[in-house]
């Protein structure tokens, strides 16, 4: 996820979640410069998952600060480091010298048999064709649509040809694969919820059941529509949405 947020001077500060999550710990330790820290703060202000991770880090750090130091601090840390260093150096000096390679890969002569050369040429041709196909496919794919929620009617001609020869998934296959993944996640969270729900009060249980039933009604309705009309893009998209909603509901109640 990448978030662009306007800075005070009107410029955009962009940071993706990966960069932010890698830098959270150094940021909390005060090891980053002011610009990087500001970028992180900006990203955190608009990105809930990163803010949650940051919260977890902060809580751990806070609890470490609150608690008494449990580790034993050596009386002379400098002397200890010198000893460790000497130990490593002495071990390194005892290691047998590594034998120099007799021949490098490049220095070896190209003594290939005819069959090896043919196989190599074919492999290169196959890889370049595949890359071209993928490149063209990405170029022609309509933007702003989720491939899993598309139907045959919205496929480009190239996609239709590729799916006929089995090089890419048809929208139905993509949808089925996605639904299987979602169902696996739903099964996992359902199990977690069933372990926890006897600890909830009646109000919590009622609200959860009411919402889950409502989602299941929608899932059932959309599945029926798709069985009758597999090309209904909108219903495919809505089914995907409500299955995500179901995953979210289960996940959010599993931590109670």
């Amino acid at each position, binding site marked *: 996820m990448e978030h662009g*947020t*306007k800075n005070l001077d009107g410029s955009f500060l962009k940071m993706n979640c990966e960069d932010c999550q890698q830098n959270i710990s150094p*940021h*909390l330790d005060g090891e980053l410069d002011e610009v990087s820290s500001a970028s992180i*703060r*900006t990203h*955190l*202000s*608009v990105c*809930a998952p990163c*803010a*949650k991770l*940051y*919260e977890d880090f*902060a*809580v751990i*750090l*806070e609890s470490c600060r609150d608690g008494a130091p449990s580790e034993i601090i050596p009386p002379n840390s400098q002397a200890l480091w010198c000893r460790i260093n000497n130990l490593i150096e002495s071990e390194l000096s005892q290691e047998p010298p590594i034998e120099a390679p007799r021949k490098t890969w490049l220095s070896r002569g190209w003594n290939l048999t005819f069959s090896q050369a043919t196989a190599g040429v074919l492999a290169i041709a196959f890889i370049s064709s595949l890359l071209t196909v993928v490149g063209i496919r990405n170029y022609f794919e309509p933007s702003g649509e989720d491939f899993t929620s598309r139907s045959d009617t919205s496929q480009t001609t190239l996609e239709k040809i590729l799916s006929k020869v089995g090089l890419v998934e048809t929208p139905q296959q993509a949808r089925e694969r996605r639904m299987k993944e979602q169902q696996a996640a739903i099964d996992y969270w359902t199990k977690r919820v069933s372990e926890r729900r006897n*600890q*909830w*009060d009646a*109000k*919590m249980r009622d*609200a*959860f059941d*009411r*919402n889950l039933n*409502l*989602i299941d009604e*929608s899932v059932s*309705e*959309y599945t029926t529509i798709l069985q009758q009309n597999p090309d*209904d*893009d*909108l*219903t495919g998209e*809505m089914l995907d*949405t*409500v299955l995500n*909603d179901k995953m*979210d*509901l289960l996940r*959010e*109640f599993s*931590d*109670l």
Partner: protein
Amino acid sequence: MARILKNRLLFLTGRTTIQLLLLSVVFLFAPAEGAAQRRFSKTYPASPVVRLTLTNRSGTVTVEGWDRPEVQVQAYLEAPAANVNPLMVDGILFINIVKDNYGRADIGNVNFNIRVPADAAVDIETKIGNLNVSSVRGALVRAKISSDGDITLTNINAQRVMAENGIGNIFFDGDIRANGIYRFTSMRGDINLRVPFNSSFKLIATAPSTRSINLGSFANGNMRFVGDGRRVTGQVGDGSSTLTVTNQRGSIAFIRR
């Protein structure tokens, strides 16, 4: 004379007994009343662009912007009272009732009244209960209810606004900023959006079950009904912002401000 005194003594004794009984009744119920609702209150100095991240379990959360550089947290804890341990780290105020009470089954509602600097980013969520945010103009307003509850966002001027609930209504009354992102999602309820007439946005509004999408004054030639009226897509003004509204089993309505 002695008889009169004896009668008077008996009368006084009887009256004292009644008074004592009344007092006991008062003392019996007074602590119960006190334990039913406890109050938490704390004020944190904060930068104008502080972020509030709140995760509640059940109860009503009300967040209001004000012109002071501080965050005032008031929580009313219904019995059995939950633990509330806010944590202010690096300009972000974290309040997580779920985490602070993990493993506890017996927790009463926690009703929050929070005041934040008007430019603050507000990110609040709850499992059950209503969420209200007003007079905030920061980078982000996010309100999420996992199950039942209404979301009311009034006098909002934020770059990113996200409101999501299960069963309940969503009401937004605020500005649509240029290049902003606005997302409103509900399973069942009414979504009402009150925005200025001169707003600019690209719209994707979907109500698959009811097909009840009322664009009001924002209906124009650029709007297109798709999927037998289940979705409306189009553009208002220059369309620099994106507005995505999805209501699985309820209505969507636009109101001109």
